[in-house]
């Protein structure tokens, strides 16, 4: 069984490193981009199995990236899970409207739960 490719676009290095370790331990193929623009491009080129998208980022924020991803034929099929600490229902609704496949609150899900959630979404 091939490892699933997870692409994380997250500007915080602390968290990105943590998730990398986490998912790697759980046998995922993991890539991280700290810059939203770079990340966006890489999704197009790498075509991961799932995109984990932070919302609060400089330049392009997560929702904007989501919009672009879902607008692009090449990338709109890829499931996108918002991974954020923003618990605002409006934002959540917005994300869902824009086509997000999941909304995960970082601090509410402990690491195991996070992995479980992602695994579920991959199916």
């Amino acid at each position: 069984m091939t490892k699933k490719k997870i692409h994380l676009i997250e500007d915080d290095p602390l968290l990105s490193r943590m998730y990398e370790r986490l998912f790697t331990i759980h046998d995922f193929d993991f890539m991280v981009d700290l810059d939203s623009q770079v990340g966006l491009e890489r999704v197009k080129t790498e075509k991961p199995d799932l995109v984990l998208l932070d919302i609060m980022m400089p330049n392009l924020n997560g929702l904007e990236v989501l919009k672009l991803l879902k607008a692009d034929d090449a990338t709109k099929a890829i499931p996108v899970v918002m991974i954020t600490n923003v618990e605002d229902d409006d934002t959540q609704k917005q994300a869902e409207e824009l086509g997000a496949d999941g909304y995960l609150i970082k601090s509410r899900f402990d690491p195991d739960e996070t992995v479980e959630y992602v695994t579920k979404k991959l199916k």
Partner: protein
Amino acid sequence: MIRLGAYFDQILNAGIDPQSVDAAELRRIKFFYAYIFIGIFACGGSALVLLMSQPTGFSYIALIITLTILVVLGLVLRFLKRTDVVVQLLLSFFFALAWFILIQSETTTGIFWLYVYAPISALLLRRQVALFWIIAFAVWIAFLGTFSWLGTTTYEEVQVYAFVATFLPISLFMVAYRRITEKAEREVYEKDIQLKELTQKLEAELAFASRSKQQLDGLSVALSKQNKKLTSSKSALLNLLEDARQLEGELKRSKANVEKQVESRTRELSLERARLASTLESLPIAVVLIDKNGKVADANDKAYELVGVPEAHHASRVAHRKISTFIDKKLQLMKFIQQCSNSTACVMIPELTYKDEFYKLALGPVESQDSDTNGGVVVVIENITAQKLLDRSKDEFLMIASHELRTPLTAIRGDAAVLSKYIEKDMNKKDAQELVQDIRGSSDRLLGVVNDYLELSSLEQGKIPFNLQRLDMIALCQQVIDENRPLATDKKLKLVYKKPRNRTLCVQADPTRVAQVIQNLLSNAIHYTQKGTITLELSASEEKITCRVKDTGVGISKFSQKNLFDKFNQAQDNLLTRDPERSTGLGLYIAKLLIEKMHGHLVLESSVLKKGSVFAFSLPVYRNETKKKPT
């Protein structure tokens, strides 16, 4: 003797009423008598003379004729009621007879008859006639005597002369006398008439006077009546005057009273007005009064400040226009103003932005006695920029805090998990395991605290929206129970779910939050129970659905029950004794807040130390029509 004379006077005068004939008539009558006397006497005398000188049958005839004439005349006069004349005629005849006899016989017989005749005539005749006869007799005697003495003439001639001499002057005398008496009588008569006239006049005047007196009496009566009326009117008038004076006095008093009242009322009004004005002026918000024509009628100091009018120009027309422009063109409130003016309800505009300033407005329709402002609108403008910025900073803080606090914590937790996974493989490093566990535990706890605080902040600020929807409690409870079953099993506790026979029991609530509450209650129950059973029970009534969580745990003392649902509470009697596994003490507080925001109630139904506790919350039954908003 006198009485007899008066009586015969009466007879003689019977035919003549000197009052009924005037003086002239009387004179005529008397002359007539005189002539008749003279005539008859002359005839008689002549006849007698004839008879004596030639006592022929002719003389006797002449005498008879004379007698006849006398009788006829007497009768006629008698018939004419002139008896006095008749008597006088008869007497005249008797004289003639006497004279005849005298001349025929001797003187003594004749004188004898005259002596007889004179007193008789004095009795029967008027005094004047008697006098006449006496004088006549005296004259005759004188003549006779004279002529006898003279002896010149014959007896017969003497007789004739005597006759003429006697009669003529005596007749003339009689006439004259008559005339004189007539004159006197006439005067008397005239005087009498005058007197009569005067008397008539007097009577007339008397009558007039009496009439006048009557009139006067009548007038006097009328006058006295009028007088009485006048007196009564006068007294009525006096009464009225008195009343008027009293009324005047009262009027003055009530006027003074009214003035006093007006004064005090004016003072009150001034005070009120001053109070109102000072209230309006001290308000830290702008108040503008707009009349029914949409023009600014009045504004307070803050309103002028808002549009930048210096104090000197407050209340000027320019200032009003500035405000008007601000409201109309800049804030674009006209449509709201019209809307408000037409209705009786207030229009609230919670937020209006203009030139980087935030305003909160309220418009209210004006109902007033003043026709100008009636139908107008009061506009209250509050600059909430500061508040908004504060809110924004709070929001920002929340968001940032939310992010900045939790990000590192998430990282710590994640790394700790990864680390523990790394170490898993190496079973010998038990201490390292413990270290990692502690790290994980700490980060979990910290995260829990931060999450709770942030959630609470958001809740209290009303930032968390609730998705009230149709929610099936039965399914939800089942879900939560299932999630907690492993935990219960670990502690060897029995977890029971009692649900009613309904297929669904729906409430109007936010599923996530309700789940959160049930989770909170269940985990509390599990945590505080060492052995026994935890029961989740659902029941329903007409209005609401109740969910009960019963445990057989340590229970809560009466003391702790008092502030069980307060912030930062932990159900330990001793403040210093902390429950190591309990995180913040915010759980029940948040749960209660959440339930109440969904129009429900959360209470501790009962708790007995060492026996257990029963927590229950209720939510309103879902009804199709009710679309409630969270409180």
